[in-house]
């Protein structure tokens, strides 16, 4: 049975119908048209589907779509403000932190959630912050460097 779900997506009010048992990832991609969270494993292991729910990072593939009723969902598609990229997006480009790009949107959401909570993380805290996101291309070092550079830029500003 389909259920109406109203919520905010990257600050904009949205409404769509969720199928019974549908997960938030499928709901966002097929029902709402936000293709930025990716389907990786469907088991909560890879983190490619990471979105924020009321500001905290969660796995969209393990979140029941109808459970976001009245709540705020954030995705990588909401990071840029118009033509202005989020500093993390710029840093990922500068540090070659994306290769195939499949993990990148989930990484960006996890990294943004980390920096919002802790603007000056240590290297270990960055590693911990992205521990729920798998990348099979980069070896993680460029991603860690990109996130650290944003934290350091902010510290200098």
């Amino acid at each position, binding site marked *: *049975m389909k*259920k109406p779900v109203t919520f905010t997506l990257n600050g904009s009010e949205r409404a769509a119908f969720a*199928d*019974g*048992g549908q*997960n938030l990832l499928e709901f966002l991609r097929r029902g709402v048209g936000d293709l930025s969270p990716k389907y990786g494993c*469907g*088991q*909560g292991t890879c*983190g490619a589907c*990471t979105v924020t*729910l009321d500001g*905290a*990072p*969660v*796995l969209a*593939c*393990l*979140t*029941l779509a*109808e*459970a976001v009723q009245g709540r705020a969902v954030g995705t990588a598609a909401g990071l840029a403000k118009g033509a202005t990229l989020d500093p993390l997006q710029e840093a990922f480009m500068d540090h070659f932190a994306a290769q195939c790009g499949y993990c990148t949107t989930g990484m960006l959401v*996890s990294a943004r*959630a*980390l920096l919002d909570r802790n603007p000056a993380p240590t290297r270990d805290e960055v*590693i*911990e*912050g*992205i*521990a*729920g*996101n798998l990348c099979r291309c980069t070896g993680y070092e460029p991603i860690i460097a990109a996130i650290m550079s944003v934290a350091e830029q902010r510290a200098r500003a």
Partner: protein
Amino acid sequence: MTTVETYSTLAEAARALSGAAYLGGGTVLMRDVNAGTAPARIVRTGDPALSEVRVQGDTISLGAGVTMAQVLARADLAFLHPVARVIGGPQVRQMGTVGGNLFAPHPYGDFAVALIALGAKAQLVGQGARAVEELMRDRTRAPLVASVEFARPRERTFGFAKVSRVKPKGVSVMSIAILAPLEGGRFRGVRVAFGAMGPHPMRGSGAERALEGQGADAATYANAAKHAGEGLDPPTDALATAWYRREVAGVHLRRLLEKMERGQ
């Protein structure tokens, strides 16, 4: 086709549970839903009591819906931070709950290991309380858990270690929790629990017998290590063989005891 039923109270959800699966944080059940192997009916509730943390004197009660992130956000639960911090990645800790961890299949369930060592009791909806270690023995038929309750351990009497091959986010080769109060220089009321060393988190009775009534010294720790594997039934899986788990259980137990003695 999956049907999701949402109830306003835990009691209503419990009444509707027959033949259905209960959805808490989603990290266990939604995997089955995605794979098409979950029961057709799913029951959930938004009962606010589920996410309550109550600290009254030395008694701590955690609602079954309290997440690992909630535990980590509370300074008065600092002794549980080493446990909650090593469960999943940041996303799983936002979602995964205390109640769900009791039902997480091998090799998951590290929080349940800590609860067993703490002697926690699970409050069951409409069915009184039952020790968490008893609940573990037949998890498939367990009723709905409302909360878990336990006494705050005294300083430096509780320790936890998770052994995993991938860091910082790896599943358990094994996890160990120890409650070892010292009275007059001797261990009294020792409780040791192991995770991933049997079909479910369980007491380490061999280690407990070796520690109980003894002093906190190298000879006691060596003897506890020698008997660590007794009563356990470790599985062979992709992470480790049963033989390996049995061989290293004593080593990790001894290291944890030494760490606790150093106050770390």
